[in-house]
């Protein structure tokens, strides 16, 4: 099946001859997935990375005090367009704390920053392409609807920078970056269900965000 229409002309151009050749091989791909749209990195990627960059953003180092906010178990897979998992991909996320402050010297609200929230985390995917974070449900801040920034790297190469959004959040439709993510399909690909987990002592939720990359080093090596 050809899903070339789900790719922008720019991606096709950038994909080059190799990408074009792949479309010509009948049955080369068992399935085709739509590429997750790239979105602006914004100015708040941490200007000084924390010492603790693990995948639990709710606890900093060995602190016994957790971050304020609704705990969220964010999971997903990094996939190529044919559904193959990408292992050893480094997934980075960063987001505001429950007060709307980034881990960045230029962030508004910096004086109210929750010192127990890590603000940034990293995880390397396993052989199934899976990643996992424990973080908080993102909140809105002046100018933006709730979102989490996500970057995918492998080796020295940055493969994708995007953002994920909460499905059904009323502020999404007013957010310029969300509106300009592309058409309805692109917005759908970055909009994630945050499902409340039943029977937890305090409210916690689960969110799954699978990311499909365009041309990757793995495809290049194939």
């Amino acid at each position, binding site marked *: 099946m050809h899903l070339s229409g789900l790719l922008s002309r720019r991606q096709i151009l950038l994909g080059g001859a190799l990408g074009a050749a792949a479309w010509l091989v009948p049955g080369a791909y068992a399935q085709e997935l739509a590429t997750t749209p790239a979105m602006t990195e*914004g*100015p708040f990627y941490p200007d000084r990375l924390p010492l603790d960059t693990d995948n639990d953003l709710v606890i900093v180092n060995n602190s016994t005090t957790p971050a304020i906010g609704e705990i969220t178990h964010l999971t997903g897979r990094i996939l190529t367009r044919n559904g193959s998992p990408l292992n050893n991909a480094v997934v980075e996320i960063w987001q505001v704390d429950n007060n709307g402050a980034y881990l960045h010297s230029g962030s508004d609200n910096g004086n109210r920053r929750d010192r127990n929230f890590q603000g940034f985390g990293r995880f390397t995917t396993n052989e199934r392409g899976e990643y996992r974070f424990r973080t908080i449900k993102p909140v809105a801040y002046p*100018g933006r609807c709730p979102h989490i920034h996500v970057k995918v790297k492998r080796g020295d190469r940055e493969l994708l920078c995007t953002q994920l959004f909460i499905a059904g959040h009323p502020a999404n439709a007013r957010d310029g970056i969300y509106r300009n993510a592309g058409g309805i399909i692109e917005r759908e690909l970055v909009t994630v269900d945050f499902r409340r987990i039943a029977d937890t002592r305090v409210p916690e939720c689960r969110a799954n965000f699978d990311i499909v990359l365009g041309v990757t080093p793995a495809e290049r090596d194939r």
Partner: protein
Amino acid sequence: MRPHTWLFLTTGLFATLLLGAFMLLEADAQPGGSKRETATQFADRLFEFDKNKDGKLTKDEVTDTRLHALFERADANNDGTVTREELESLFTRESLPDKGGFGPGDKKGPKGKGKGPPFPPQS
């Protein structure tokens, strides 16, 4: 033809090609912006999943499960299939205007970096 005429024509052709390439990339830079997707284009893209070409989509045909929620929203009569008309109707319901509301927010520079205020005013 005199040499400067050739130079003029070549320069003109090059400028036209450059402008054309720039316009093509610029149009794609904001797929929801300067070159908005139409309802027909939206339906066309999803109908690339119509493997048996029967003019109806089933959930099985939509191999990208991330689009299943969209499929369910489109299936207005809940018959398990989605027609082109249902997709165009969904497009009308869910299209967002380019402008208005707040944002772009993160596109502005951080405080003290000389790129303007960190956030636009909240609306």
